[in-house]
């Protein structure tokens, strides 16, 4: 068996394009997931039983089923329900945002729980309306405490994003598999693709632990 990595140079442009699709996709899904996750976490801490149970059921369902099933469901079934055509990119963004929203809401919920009740008493004493309380008192503190978990959620979203190749989105994984099939050199190309994922995933994972250590100091101080 002879390895030959030189042919990869001619494919570097396509690989980079795939990588940029992956990163754009992760960025978009992470942003939507963060917003949706915060809304869900408010639902899960709500005193209204209907809202609480609906959001709890949602979170448990998305955490309890494979992302691949969710992705296929959105890709194949949602267009039938809505009666519109969804591109691979759109359905991938929808599926992964819905999924990451459920995961992210758990990080927010843990952070919300850690906010002392005295903060809420202070809000009442100051006569702040509900909306102001949520946006200016609860949100900043919850976000600060949730940052390490949120970052690691985004890192796992980055890893899960390889799935979208299954619905034909031309991300890094898809491009890599395509080239591997065309040139019949899976070892070189798949190893390089894995290394590219690693080159991004590893520093991100490390960054999470650094941020976590820093924040611990801030919170303790």
């Amino acid at each position, binding site marked *: 068996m002879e390895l030959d990595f030189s042919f990869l140079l001619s494919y570097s442009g396509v690989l980079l394009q795939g990588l940029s699709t992956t990163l754009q996709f992760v960025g978009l899904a992470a942003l939507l997931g963060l917003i949706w996750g915060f809304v869900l976490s408010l639902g899960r801490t709500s005193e209204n039983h209907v809202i609480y149970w609906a959001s709890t059921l949602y979170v448990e369902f998305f955490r*309890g*089923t*494979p992302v691949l*099933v969710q992705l296929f*469901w959105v890709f194949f*079934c949602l267009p039938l329900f809505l009666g519109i055509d969804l591109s691979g990119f759109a359905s991938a963004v929808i599926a992964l945002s819905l999924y990451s929203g459920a995961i992210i809401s758990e990080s927010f919920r843990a952070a919300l729980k850690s906010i002392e009740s005295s903060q809420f008493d202070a809000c009442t004493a100051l006569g702040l309306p509900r909306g102001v309380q949520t946006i200016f008192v609860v949100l900043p503190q919850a976000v600060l405490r949730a940052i390490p978990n949120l970052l690691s959620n985004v890192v796992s979203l980055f890893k899960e994003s390889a799935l979208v190749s299954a619905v034909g989105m031309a991300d890094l994984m898809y491009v890599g598999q395509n080239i591997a099939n065309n040139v019949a050199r899976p070892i070189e190309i798949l190893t390089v693709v894995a290394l590219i994922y690693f080159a991004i995933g590893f520093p*991100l994972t490390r960054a999470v632990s650094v941020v976590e250590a820093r924040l611990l100091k801030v919170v303790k101080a």
Partner: protein
Amino acid sequence: MNYEFNWFYVQKSLPDLFDGLLVTLQLTLWANAIGLVFGFLVALGMMSKIKLITWPLTIYIEFFRCTPALIQLVWFFFCVPIIFNVWWSGYFMGILALGLNLAAFNAEAYRAAIQAIPHSHSDASVALGLNAFQRIIHVILPQALILALPVLITNGIGIFQQSALVALISVEDLMYQGRYISTQTFRPIETLTTVALIYFAVSFPVSQAVSYIERRTKRLLAN
């Protein structure tokens, strides 16, 4: 929305889905067997002071933790046969890739648990004249298992869900059967929803059990 539901085909193909579920469960169990045993060995290796042992293990753990499970699976499926000149089935490759992935995550869980064992225990083992092997089996392993149990089970259900990936390398698991039936019958909504519900029906009770066990161990350790 004017979609007419038709559950006839799903009902008819329930036995196929059940066969798929069995494959999924087998994959999960084997991957967990590898993950629990190999993960503990890796965690022990990471405790070593010899760099020649810890470095390769660190690379192994970080590599499996920082790359998508899908690329690991595809890599095993396409590259292992060429490199080692063996022809193993997709099923076996799936077990291997998922098992090694799980072992990397479990190793971290074990390591945190082993580090939480008070140092006095290893002093006590020396005082009792236990050799290294006895100390690992009778002192470290039971405590590490109890402390790490919630994380180990959570990782285990994670692998149950990740195992759906093997459908992409044509292993006939639940996901594969679901996709096959949905394209054969043009009934994606009914089929894929049923598949999702089956996955949920298995993983939800387990995840509830984890939070129960977690509360129990916390109380156990508090006493």
